[in-house]
């Protein structure tokens, strides 16, 4: 491991050139830690933890992590406690001369369900102090399927900009050219192991995977995955419909208001004509301020996030079915061959 450059230098460099984050390099040990933590209290709660590491040029090296106790995000009275724990932990790490530079956080998720408003809020608050932070999302369902569901994500610049300006309206989204796919940016993850670890792995690993009889790989058990994802999709659709309802309500209200304004104007015009006939000053035609309060447009954020979630579910389904299909064709070929 290269000698870490001083913090001051790093900070200065960071400010000098804002090279876009190209990849996240995660230590194998970190992944194991995350996986352990997340699978420990898999289920209802989301497990979260802090990522520590270094920001080197285009890559963000994640060298260590520690979990947060319980669920930090959900209960507000524990926020203070969580923070103090975090600070205490950081202090301890510094004392032991370990890496203690925060680069982001990790959290567990079930499929794509991490894409909610909270994560965006957390991101924005992180980004206030730390421009180049990432969130590593660990998908526990993928782990059940025997795959490593690890993803490093951050928010896109455009989105953050738009988000900071306030409520996301349709107009704004359109003006910025944002779409639901532009909310999150996925950064490629590279796993880095120290030579020692690699050596150990080579030592521990079974002699050859190719020669071993591995019929498990031909298992077509996608039904469970599909079911789950479909369920989530259905839930999402319900939510989207709620959003849709809000939108149509808004449209109705707005239309009604426009009518009311038009009516007011017509009335005023008539009144003005009468006044002019009577030789009085005409009143201004526009309705006075505050008479018609603009109808609050529903925030589009939820909609975008829901779209994201749905997209990820669909992707899961896609990949699962793709695998299953390829297995099927394989089997078909095999049987023909036999």
């Amino acid at each position, binding site marked *: 491991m290269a000698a870490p450059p001083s913090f001051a230098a790093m900070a200065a460099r960071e400010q000098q050139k804002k090279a876009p984050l190209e990849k996240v390099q995660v230590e194998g040990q970190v992944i194991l830690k995350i996986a352990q933590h997340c699978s420990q209290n898999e289920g209802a709660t989301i497990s979260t933890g802090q990522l520590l590491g270094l920001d080197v040029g285009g890559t963000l090296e994640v060298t260590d992590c520690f979990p947060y106790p319980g669920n930090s995000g959900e209960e507000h009275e524990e926020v203070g406690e969580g923070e103090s724990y975090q600070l205490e932990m950081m202090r301890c790490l510094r004392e032991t001369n370990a890496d203690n530079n925060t680069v982001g956080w990790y959290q567990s998720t079930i499929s794509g369900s991490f894409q909610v408003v909270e994560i965006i809020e957390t991101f924005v608050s992180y980004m206030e102090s730390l421009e180049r932070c990432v969130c590593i999302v660990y998908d526990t369902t993928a782990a059940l399927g025997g795959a490593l569901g690890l993803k490093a994500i951050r928010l896109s610049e455009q989105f953050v900009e738009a988000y900071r300006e306030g409520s996301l309206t349709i107009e704004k989204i359109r003006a910025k050219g944002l779409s639901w796919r532009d909310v999150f940016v996925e950064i490629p993850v590279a796993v880095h192991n120290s030579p020692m670890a690699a050596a150990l792995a080579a030592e521990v690993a079974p002699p050859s995977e190719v020669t071993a009889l591995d019929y498990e790989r031909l298992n077509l058990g996608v039904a469970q995955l*599909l079911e789950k994802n479909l369920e989530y*999709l*259905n839930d999402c659709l319900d939510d989207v419909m709620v959003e849709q309802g809000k939108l*149509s309500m808004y449209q109705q209200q707005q*239309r009604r208001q426009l009518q009311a304004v038009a009516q007011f104007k017509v009335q005023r015009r008539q009144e003005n004509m009468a006044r002019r006939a009577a030789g009085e000053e005409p009143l201004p035609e526009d309705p006075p301020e505050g008479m018609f309060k603009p109808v609050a447009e529903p925030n589009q954020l939820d909609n975008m996030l829901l779209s994201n979630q749905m997209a990820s579910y*669909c992707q899961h*389904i896609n990949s699962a079915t793709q695998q299953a299909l390829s297995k099927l064709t394989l089997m078909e070929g095999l049987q023909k061959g036999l």
Partner: protein
Amino acid sequence: MASKFWAASSSEEESEEEVTTSEEETSSDEGSSSDSDSSSSSSSSSSGSSRKKGASRFLMGSSDSESEDERRVVRSAKDKAYDELRATCNEIKNKMHINDWAAIQTLFDKLNKQLERTQKVTQSLGVPRAYVRMLCELEDFLNKTLAEKPKLSPTNTRALTRMKQTLRKHNAAYTEQMRLFRENPVSETEEEAPSSSESESEESGSERELNTEEEEEAKFKSVRTGVVQRPKDKLLTMDPKEITYEMVQKKLQEIAMARGKTTRIDRQEQIEMLTYLSGVTKGPVQKLEVLINVITVTFDMNQPTQNAMTVPNWNRCAQTMFDIMVLLDENRHITLTDTPPEEERIEEPEAGTPTQVWGNLGAFLERLDDEWNGSLKALDPHANEYMERLKDEAVLLALAQKVSDYLQAHNELDKLAGVALKRIQHFYYKTDVVYAAMRKLALQRQQDSAEAPEAPTAALDAEVVDGEEAEGATELIVVKIPHDFNIPESCAELVEQLARVVYAHGNDNQKGQAMLCTVYFRCIRDDFYGARDTLLMSRIQEQTGQLDAKMQVLYNRTIAQLGLSAFRAGLIFECHQCLMDLYGTGRVKELLAQGIQQHRFQEKTPEQEAAERRRQVPFHMHINLELLESTYLISAMLLEVPAMASSQSTDVRKRVISKPLRRLMDNYERQSFTGPPENVRDHVMAAVRSLATGDWRRAYSYVTALSCWSLLPQKEAVLGMLRNKLQEEGLRTYLLAYGRFYSSLSIAQLCDMFELPERKVHAVVSRLIADDGLPASHDQPTGTIVVHHVEPTRLQTLAGTFSDKASLLVDLNERALAMRTGALHTDDDDGDGRRGHDGAQGGRRTRLGGRLGGVGGFGGRGGRGGRGGRFGDRERGSGFMPAEGFAGGVFGRGRGRRTSMQRDSNFTELGQFGGSARRGRT
């Protein structure tokens, strides 16, 4: 005080009550009961009005009976006054006992006022003995008190001194009476004796009067006791030959001027006057004017919004109308106009010259019809009087025919349409049997009136008045149906013909009503398809909200009949569609205007209630609610029970077909003990329970136990149809509910169970298989149905739900987009730019859709970016709705209901999900 005037016309004597003979007592039972009312409840307005009613009831006609009535009324007023007087006297006596002079003083003032009133009422200057006695007693007591000088409170002392002064002043006027009284002090009980003697003398006096009348009969033919004393009726005492045109005209004008100001009693007088005038007129034009005035004055005698016209009044109106018609017929040069004449006619126009007289026959007829309806509403429908009144319909119809003949001859087409509509409204609810009965009655009556002597007309003709006959006529003017009234044998033709007239000349409202009436008419003659087509052609169901209440009621009645007719024809689905809107609201009575329903949570204002009361349909036009309810519930049962069975077997919740039935079932199931069925609902519920297990026999026995089937003329056919339906639905329900527990079912067994022919069973089963209700197939060689047990996997279920939701979402999206582009942004440039953007997004979505390929609704969703496709969709939708479904909307809820259960070809494997997805789109 209504009776004031009548009192004035009678004699002065205070104790006239004794004049009443026993005959009169019997004839005026009602009157005397109202008397006791009025005397018991001092001067409350209600008793006053009841007396008024009594008065007008008996004061209709002429001469003798009238004068009797007069006396009776007077007696009541006097009685009341006397009772009040006596009560005050007693009170004064009571106060005297406790030496309360302040109270005595106020009571004395009151007594004096009452005396004044009494004198006004009795029109006599005489002083009641009770009063005189009171004065004596008061004087005595005063003197006594002054002599004794008891200790009194300051107020009392002051009152005493004042009393002394007033009494002295007051008694000066009555010294003579008091002296007489003191000479002969009689107690109150003894009072009757002298008064009877007095009355005897009075009677002899009146006899004397009568004698003189007889003597002078040649001169005063129509003089009556009551009339003679009226100073203003000079005209009546004159020789008819001396009465000139101007005199009549003047009188007529006088009466016309008095319209709207005077009380009811004046009107009575006016009518008498007019009847007299009509006899002495100098020509048909004037007579016509007089007769028209008779009608208008009679119409003024009651408030149409409050209570209906009395029967004699009504009869008088009808007869007068007939007279007018005869007059008009005889004098074809006279026409009636709506506009009142600008200048007064001074002389009777030459015979044969075209003349215009003010009057609107159509309006008169309409009013007469309304009054007839109103009186029916007021009567108890189960009493004999109702039947009697109902018989007058013939009169009304004859009159309507006359009027429409006249209107047709004079080419007043808009009024003709109104009259034709009125006539339709008398026919449309009559079945052939009822019509035939009515026709018979009318003809009978026509014959009777042709045979009868000229009595009824004589009653109105003052010149030929004959005592006996006139009296009979007052009791009941028998309206003569003219001989040329013909009522065709076929009601259908008549209605058709009348409807044509309305369609040709009526306004929109009239046309609508006529149309609804014909639809109703067809319905009760079992022409369901004809009725339905007529109704649909009119498109009236789309605008039920804009109709006025009366027409909405008619519309609802029509829909109800349509439902009943569909049921009789065995069209269960149509029947349910018609009736569900009526029963869905739970206020059938209100919708059909057949009674006032009280609602638990909403209070009606009195105005609303009065309006509702006015809307009510007379009893003889009612649609039997019990029959309607059983029809509705049974049709709902036949549809709902198989649907419930199919939703039980698959756990997807299906749309509820009939909410009221479901509600009833929930209630029924909540009961811990269920007794034997009593009412319609119980019966149907019991039938539902049996049918749900496929036990059609018991269901049928429950249904046939309903009593209302006897109301149907074609009872056997309907019950046969019901039996058939129950068998089929029973089979369907049985298969849906229990089919999955079998691996195979023998068709022969099923035939046996449901007593159906094999072909029918085959048909029902095939239909079920085709509709994905039963996963089975026919096995012809063995004559069985083989059931496949295929349950959808969880994944399939989920996918089905997903497709449902996705399609719903797409729909919502499209709507939102349409609103955004169509309704909200009319500004063209802006809209175009945005649409371009949309298009681009749509395109992107298409690509995405392609990428996501197999995932549910996404593929379809991407494609719909373009504008043309969207609008095409919408247009198709709007054109589709009215053509598609027949739906009986009630009160504006006439939206088309999509009934087709089209299946999406993509989802045939998943059967019911596809179906529900399509349904979700509506």
